[in-house]
């Protein structure tokens, strides 16, 4: 029980929360960069997954990278922290549906996770990585750290 408490205390410590925010934020900022620069290439990847109706693919390919970008940015600076974490969880769950579905249908495609150029094939390792990324995302969502966060600054101003 003591160990359990210590773990909870550690995971909900504001500094640790900040580290989680930085990890989750930077990963998503990094992931958005190449897709924003190359919408055409990202659209090709979205299409390869063959999940969305083709008519919605361009819209998805144009918007998703910017959601990743904003979520990444806001997690790093700590603004709208919970909302960003919620979207972070949502996107990871979405990837966790898309990747196994491609695997199950034996579609041999590029992941399109971080780069539109390099061929990182969709595989089990990506699933593990996504699950790993879900941990900080969920912790931020349920125990948001206001340490070095703009949210805290705004709340203070509001309060005074």
């Amino acid at each position, binding site marked *: 029980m003591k160990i359990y408490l210590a773990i909870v205390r550690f995971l909900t410590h504001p500094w640790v929360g900040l580290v989680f925010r930085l990890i989750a934020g930077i990963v998503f900022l990094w992931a958005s960069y190449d897709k924003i620069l190359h919408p055409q290439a990202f659209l090709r990847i979205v299409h390869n997954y063959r999940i969305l109706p083709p008519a919605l693919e*361009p819209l998805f390919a144009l918007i998703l990278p910017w959601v990743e970008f904003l979520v990444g940015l806001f997690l790093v600076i700590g603004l709208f922290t919970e909302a960003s974490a919620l979207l972070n969880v949502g996107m990871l769950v979405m990837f966790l549906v898309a990747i196994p579905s491609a695997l199950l249908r034996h579609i041999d495609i590029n992941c399109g996770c971080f780069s539109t150029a390099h061929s990182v094939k969709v595989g089990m390792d990506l699933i593990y990585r996504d699950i790993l990324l879900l941990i900080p995302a969920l912790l931020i969502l349920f125990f948001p*750290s206001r340490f070095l966060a703009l949210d805290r600054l705004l709340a203070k101003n509001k309060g005074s």
Partner: protein
Amino acid sequence: MPKQKQPRRPWKSIVIQALALVVLAGVMGLGRNTLSSRPLPLFQPVNPLLIDTVGVRGLDSLQTREAWEKHFATFLDARKRELFKEGHIPGAKSLPLEDFDNALSQLTLPADSAYIIYCEGKDCEYSDLLAQRLYVLGYRKLAVFPGGLEEWIKGNHPVEK
């Protein structure tokens, strides 16, 4: 436990904020697309190339390099002829999309050979379109190198003039 912890935000406001973030992302994404020199067409299956060349593989730079070194395939340059003359992957043949029929008739390209098609870089679609045209003509051993000449040069690979 942290002392300065604030009361949790209610879920409703979190969800509203999240939706607002998605809307903002939509404005940014669509805005950038509108301002872009080559915007993606919305609400329509982009261009048939994406549908019709599903069977065509995309190669990364390493695979392309290996194919080039081992002469696995003939390289086809889908760009305009002037650009081809300025520099291309050594051994590549010029098959400009804009002059497709004419250029194809001047080349000997057996339908059962393997071809790797490229154009300028990631955002050009000539290679996809060329792959599509060749596919329709019965060519099946086609691959596209989406990184194109830009990535080829970035990888310090030789360029022929």
